[in-house]
Structures are given as structure tokens and as C-alpha cells.
């Protein structure tokens, strides 16, 4: 039985080899052609990075003191003319329960 099995393997070996070689060709070809997709993905990464940089610039500009103070002035905010400070010794709370 073992001899029969061995003979069968010997007969099938060439077919198996051909199948393996064919499979390697197919996988290699598939991967080789993927280069274009890799290039496209990498380009997308670069595009997103550029977009992030552009948006970071917009955020920095919008949140800058320069912009906020200009907007505040345009909305009518002014610098206070006077400040009053209330220290702990000045602050008295009176509570009536009646």
C-alpha cells in the first residue's frame, strides 16, 4: 500500500510542480501590478498631509490674538477704563434669614 501511494505521488509530482509554478506566476504578477495602487495610496497620504498643514495654518490664524482682538474690536468690545479689585478683607457677605 505504501508503494502504491509512493507511485501515485511520483505520478502527481510534475502536475503539482506545474501548479505551484503557475501559482507563483499569478501571485507575482498580481503583486507587481499593485505598485500602481501603492503609488496612489502614497499620493493620497501626501495629499492628506498637505490638507492637514493647510487646515493647521487656518486654525492658527483664526485663533491668533491678532485675529481675536480684531474681531472683538469689530464686534464693539472695548478695553475697560477702570478695574476694581475686591480682596478677601473687603468682601462681606450678609445673609438675612428673615
Amino acid at each position, binding site marked *: 500500500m505504501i508503494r502504491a501511494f509512493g507511485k501515485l505521488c511520483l505520478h502527481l509530482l510534475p502536475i503539482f510542480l506545474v501548479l505551484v509554478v503557475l501559482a507563483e506566476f499569478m501571485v507575482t504578477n498580481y503583486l507587481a501590478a499593485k*505598485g500602481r495602487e*501603492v503609488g496612489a495610496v502614497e499620493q493620497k497620504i501626501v495629499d492628506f498631509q498637505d490638507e492637514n498643514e493647510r487646515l*493647521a495654518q487656518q486654525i492658527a490664524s483664526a485663533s491668533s490674538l491678532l485675529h481675536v482682538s480684531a474681531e472683538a474690536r469689530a464686534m464693539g468690545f472695548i478695553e475697560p477704563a477702570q478695574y476694581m479689585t475686591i480682596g478677601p478683607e473687603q468682601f462681606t457677605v450678609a445673609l438675612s434669614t428673615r
Partner: protein
Amino acid sequence: MFRMWLIFSLFALLFCFISLRLFYWQVIAGDRLKARAASQYSAEFILPASRGKILASDSSPLVINQPAFLAYAEPKKIKNISHFLSSVHTVLGANETDIDGLLADEERSWVLLAHKVELPVVEKLKALGLSGLGFEKEPKRYYPEASMAAHVLGFVGSDENGRDKGYFGLEGYYDRDLRGKDGVVELEKDARGMPILIGEAKRIEAEDGRTLVLWVDKSIQNILENRLSEGIRKYGAQEGSVVIMDPQTGGILGMVSFPSYHPQNFLSYEKTLYKNPIVASSYEPGSTFKALVMSAGIQEKVISPTTTMEEIGPLNVNEYAIRTWNNEYHGTINMTKVLERSSNVGMVFVAQKLGKESLLRYIRDFGFGQPTGIDVEEESSPALRDRKNWTEIDYATASFGQGIAVTPIQMVRAVGALANGGWIMEPHIVKEIIESRGRVLRIKPKKIRQVISPATSRIVTEMMVAAVDNGEAKWAKPSGYRIAGKTGTAQIPVAGHYDEKKTIASFVGFAPADNPKFVMLVTLREPTSSPWGSETAAPLFFTIARDLFRYFGITPGQ
């Protein structure tokens, strides 16, 4: 036989010739041919590193990068050169004659049109649909706060190879940290130039530049810039500067000098404006120096706040007469009154008690005559004259801050020692450096040396509080706050003598006196409304101090 030898010789000659050719192609030209072959099947891409950012103390950006491009033309791909030129000129505003000749040159395959073109302009150029027009990424710096802290930041220009390089300020000092390191990708490509996934590939990632986080507080910087600008206008000064330091850490909380420039358009400004005068220009400190000499006398125990002297008239030093600033003399006065009244005669008394060697030693120990080590590119220090070149009058005038040159950063650092128990700190603008991978390097505060004891610093602090409360500038002081300070009015030396009218008015101080949050120096050069520090620099100091008290939440009496 002869014919056999002839044929043999011919074959031998042929063999030698082929061997020599093989040697040439494989050995001499081998590397060149290998490179040519590699260029056909392999591609190399540079992964450019982003320049590091500069952030304020609250991590908000002071300097970041914005997308920009290098615009170029490929003459061989241009269909109509004149149409190309006029279209590009309309958008870029470039001078046509500069590149007309270059585009017409048949040998050229690449012509530079403009550096660092911003995105909106690039979009307009792309919309033209011109063939032969190309773009390469070339980021440029962006300043969200415009010209704020220009002298602190410096600017980015080009080196001799056209690469970005930082000049002045932090951009210059930390150029290598900010620059980063470009990466590279080498991989095999197919006939269409697409990468082959299973081919050989080598990738070295770019290392972006490090990010700097500063001690500079954006709100404080904004206060300084607004107030200094108002002050220069109000007092008719030629120039002015303000620097604020945390006396406990040496961290620079704010630093401004006018006139200034915009780092984005640095080429539009005079080159003389690039240097930060606070670290690179010297001046005679005048009476602000008196607090330091007084502290030396107290530290050496040759005087105390209650030591008295007779201020009865000008004091003669060799052939010179030392007078008080207003030529008024008050008889018996103590050292606290000497500081309150800013008496030059009193200070010469202190210097004589201290002695020449000690006075010179304390001047050096307080850090004068040498750079402070602050982390900006252009710091310089005026040298102190050699001991053997000091005359009697030099010691006398040095005691009240004339005849000696200092930089503002040296002055504020020295007075900082009076505020923090006697320690000379190394001033720093950068607090942390963040690497591209996220590791944070904290720059620890550095104590250089202790010049006076904590007890001496407390005594001198009280004397300086008295000088503010009872001195010439008391009218401007915010009520309810204990501020230690000293006015200064120094004449400007011109061609070997002092100008009669021109002065540098200054005020140096720290507050709150009992637990100082900041030490600040204000200088105004040639104020025209009044030459006196008590009427110009001092009120400006107190105006800024009021803003800072509000900002820090410091109430009167605290």
C-alpha cells in the same frame, strides 16, 4: 612557421585588446554604468523633513509651516514662450526679461520661476493650464501673530546652497534642531515608473524638525508690545525695549524692542533691525545700577540701610566734581535715602567703603562683561576694561552706572538676583524641546552662582520698595502694591563726551516685592517729552505692571 607566428600574434593582440576593453567597461566605467542601469529600474525620492514649530508657553503657535511651492518651467515642453511668459507674469508679477532669455535657451531643460509661491497663487497658475509649468513643494514659515516677538523668533532665509537656514533669534540659535533630517526612499520601478511591490526597497523616514516650546507668554508679549508702542509715541522716544524674566527660573516671559520688523518679509527691512538690541546692544545703565552696588556694600557689611553720610555738596574725585542729579544736597542721610533720592554722591561713598577690588569683583559676579548664555543667536557683551585701566574716577562713576556699558538682558538678570535670594540665573527663552517622535526634553533652570545672601536680597528689596514709594516716580505707582524698583537716567556718550540733552531713560524692578512673579526692565532712548526716567520709563513700567497684576490675578496687598 612564420605565418603561424603571425596568426598567433594577431590573436594575442586581439585578446589583449578585448581584455583592455573589458577592463575599461567593468572596472573604470563600471560604477557609472551601474548607476545608469540603476536609474532605469530604480527610483529615489527625497522625503523632505518639515521644519520644527515654535510655540508659546500655552502651546499656541508663534511660527508654523505653510504649504508653498517652487514654480519652474520646462522650456522644451512650452508651446508658445511669449504666451507662457505673459500669463505667468500676470499671476506672479515677475519681471519678464529676467527669464525670457533663459526660456529661449535650447540647452536648458529646467528654469526656476519663483521660490515659495503660496497656495492661492499656485491654484491660479494651475488654472492657466500651461504645459511646461511645474511645481515642487517648498514650504515656508507662517506667523499667525504677524510681527509679534520678531526679535525673539528671528527669521528663515537661504544658505549658499539655497536651503532654508535660520538667522538671528531662535531660528538662528536652534537652526539644527528645527531643520530636521530629510529621508529617502529607493525602490524598483516598472516601465511606467510605478513602484514594484515585490522589488527591492529601501526607506529611511524623514525626521521632522524639533518643536520649541517657549517661556514666552503670548498674552504678556501682547501687553508689552501694545504698551511699549504707546509709550514710545507718548514720550517721543527714538527706540524702546522691555524685557520680563521670571527671577526664579530665568525664563523670559516677554521681550520686545521697537523699531522692529516682520520675519515674513524680512528683506523689506533694514538689516540693522534684525539684531535684538536687548541682547546685542549696550547702554550705560545709570542710576538703575545703584541697587546692585548698594547690595554689594550690604553683603560685605561695610554699610547697612541705616548707615549715614554727609551729603553737603559735590564730592571731588581727583580733578572731577561728582554732583547729585538735581544739585540738591540734604545733609545727613542714610543709605535708604541715598537710593530714594538717587544720590550720586551717596553712591560714591558706598563705592569708597566697598573698595575698588570688591566693587570690580561684584560687577563681574553680577554677570557684567560676559554673555549671559541666553539662547538667541546674536548675543554679545561689551567687555569690562582690565583692572589696571580703571582710574579713581572710573570707580566713582561706575557706582552710579556711568562709564560702564551693559546689555539690557545682563541688567535684568542681575536685578533678578536681588529678587530671588541672590542667585544669578541663566536666562532662557526655550522651556522645552519636543522631538518629532514625541519625546519631551525639558530645559531645567540653571543657577550660575549666588552673589548675595537671601538676607541681603531682602534688605535691598525693602530699600528698593522705599525708593519706589518715596522716590521721584511715586506719583505713577499703582496703589496697594509693593513694587521694588529703581529709576535710571543715563547720559549718552557721543564722541568722547556726554551729550547734554540726550538720555536713556530706564526703570528696573520686580513685583510683588515679597514673592516676585516677574523682574522687568524698561528702556527708552532719547525721550523728548522729558529726559528723566522717573517721568517716562517709570510710568511706562507701572502701566505694564498694572496689566500684569490683572493678568496674574495679583490683588493689592497680596
